[in-house]
């Protein structure tokens, strides 16, 4: 049988509706095209 204490650590709090605004603001929308452009800019 698994260890409860370890197992419970895998559970994260669910996002509450009140936090949606912050969550949208903090959402990382970076995609691979952004990373690629960043790399190209750095090379240049």
């Amino acid at each position, binding site marked *: *049988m*698994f260890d*409860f204490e370890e*197992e*419970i650590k*895998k*559970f994260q*709090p*669910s*996002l*509450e*509706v*009140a*936090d*949606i605004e912050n*969550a*949208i603001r903090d*959402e990382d*929308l*970076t*995609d*691979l*095209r*952004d990373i*690629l452009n960043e790399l190209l800019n750095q090379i240049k």
Partner: protein
Amino acid sequence: MELTQKFLYQSNYWYNDGLERAKVRDMSGAIRSLKHSLKYNRDNVPARNLLGLTYYGCGEAAEAVIHWIISRSIQPRDNLANYYIKRIQQSPNELERQKQAIHKYNQCLAYCRQNGEDLAIIQLKKVIASHPTFLKAYQLLGLLYLTGKEYSNARQVLRKAHKLDNANPITLRYMYELNRVREKKPIRLKENKPQTVSYSVGNETVIQPANPDSKEKARISILLNLLIGAVMGVAVLWFLIIPQIQQSKAFQTNDDIVAYSDEIASQNAEISALKTELDTYRNASEESESAKETAKSTQASYELLLKVKEQYDSQTVSNADMAESLGEVNREALGEGAKALYDTLVEVIYPSVLETRYTSGKASYDVAEYETAAASFQGIIDIQEDYNEGKALLYLANSYARSGDTDKAEEVYQKLLDLMPDTDIAAKAQKGIDGDIPEVEDTQ
């Protein structure tokens, strides 16, 4: 091919993969694939909308709303996200319920980390009751049941979690653990007895059931079942059918009784009417009979009176005989003139008759011929009860007493007492009643 084009293709590839997974309710797999898709192209609107929908399917409304809002900001028009957001806005109660459920779930997580598992279980039950698609709540409750060794409850909860997301690694892991625990349980195996017994008779092999009692047991079982069936049948008959029949019989009897009562009442009324009618006829008949009798008596009385008158005039008949005839005359039936004649005859005939009888009775009494004496005195009493100041009555009573007829004697003494109370002769009558026959002081 340009690299950016390749990224778009990759994004679409993962979107398709996510869609396939979502269709078979592999929600966690779908979320993973769709997140991949968005890593290649953050503007993949269908992938973002589907990701939101997948989160919503797992009960994560807030996560869903985030992706739909971002999707709408990327493509404000002709976007499915608008529809989803509108639907949520149209049902604020539902959103509020889910919001509360998510909040309670987070509280439960905190309880679990503070060794408040019991409280967490109670709270989680309420959470899944109010928000039945909240996958994480089922999983956490399943974990709590598992660690609390409540395997049956754990199985129920994890089955529901599995229905919501059929390839979720956490759910699968818990189900695996649950199965492992079940397999560890010792299973009682039936003793492997041989089912048949074989033996040889000559060249033939005979195979018989191993348990010789099996047939007997089967027979007993059949009999037992029949018995139980019969008992149940009797019970049903006794408790359900018979009371019904009895009740209906009682109702029928009551109806019959009421009908008979009515009939009896009507017959009684008829009988009563007939009785009244009969009584009327009887009365009428009695009255006519009485009138007839009266007429007869009147006629006889007149005839007797005329006869006595003739006898008195001719002087051929003794006074005693004439007195006897007069005694049979009904004075009340006579008219005024006849009554006057009757009274005249009585006045001239009776005194001598009474005197004769008194003398005769006294003579018989003196020689102890009490029966003869009693007859004489009775003849006097029939005409005049208080003859010779009651002495005739006293003689009569004494005659009865001395002849041994005490009942009659007592009756006559009592008559004397009633007739002449508070007199010397009444005192003598009392003496006679007391059993001491009184002497009659008679100077006549």
